């Protein structure tokens, strides 16, 4: 299954390139569009993992709804280019080396002992189908699913209250 590996490497490189571009760009609209690239290539990686439903909602919810909200706010606030001011020194002095150490440790562990983990393949056709996810979601996870609706209601009310013009 060499084609599987080739596709993973291609989409993985697009994904990382989009994420690096998100950090490199100074205008928020460029960052938002590179985040859309990251999300679209992640959706294709989900398809490689046999997660059809998750890939579909990744495109619809993330790349569609959430990113439209971001782009809308950037346009609404007329956000200009980022000023490169010196940020917090603690973030630079402690945070950045911390992230480097974290990435190094995780990468070293995975490269060193990742062989014991085995591998994934494009699985049988009924895995990741909407049918089986719905069965799980509405039986075993019914209570969390219902609580989620309350969460969304609170989020809607919060957004309306915060966005309301005062006075």
């Amino acid at each position, binding site marked *: 299954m060499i084609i599987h590996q080739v596709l993973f490497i291609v989409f993985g490189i697009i994904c990382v390139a989009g994420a690096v571009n*998100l950090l490199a760009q100074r205008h928020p609209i460029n960052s938002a569009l590179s985040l859309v690239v990251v999300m679209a290539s*992640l959706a294709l990686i989900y398809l490689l993992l046999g997660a059809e439903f998750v890939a579909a909602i990744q495109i619809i919810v993330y790349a569609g709804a959430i990113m439209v909200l971001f782009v809308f706010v950037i346009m609404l606030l007329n956000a200009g280019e980022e000023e490169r001011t010196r940020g917090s020194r603690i973030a630079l002095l402690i*945070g*950045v080396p911390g992230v480097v150490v974290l990435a190094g440790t995780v990468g070293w562990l995975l490269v060193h002992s990742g062989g014991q983990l085995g591998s994934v393949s494009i699985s049988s056709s009924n895995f990741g189908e909407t049918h089986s996810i719905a069965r799980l*979601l509405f039986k075993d996870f019914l209570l969390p699913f219902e609580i989620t609706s309350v969460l969304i209601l609170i989020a809607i009310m919060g957004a309306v209250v915060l966005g309301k013009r005062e006075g």
Partner: protein
Amino acid sequence: MVPLSWYLILSAILFCLGVFGFLLKRNIITIFMSIELMLNAVNLSFVAFANYWNSHPHKLASGADVVPLSGHVFVFFVMVVAAAEAAVGLAIIISVFRTRETLNVDQVNLLKL
């Protein structure tokens, strides 16, 4: 056949890039996008492990079976929470911009409006 560790390494790279963006960017909207990037990185490892446990059946210490598809359900919940978070967070950004006229986090250093 792709090793599971490749997916986890990609996930770790994306997560660390998200943390870097969170620490180094100064625009509040870009910081928010870095958080979304971190959430996506975690989603990738959930889906990768769901596929992995599907092809490697396994029992928990309590004797119960691992349900591989619950990884997909978790991704679903993460997306719901991310959508709610985006709605509230962007409303907060709009309300901060109204009073401060800036999106630079260095100039937003008081909770009081």
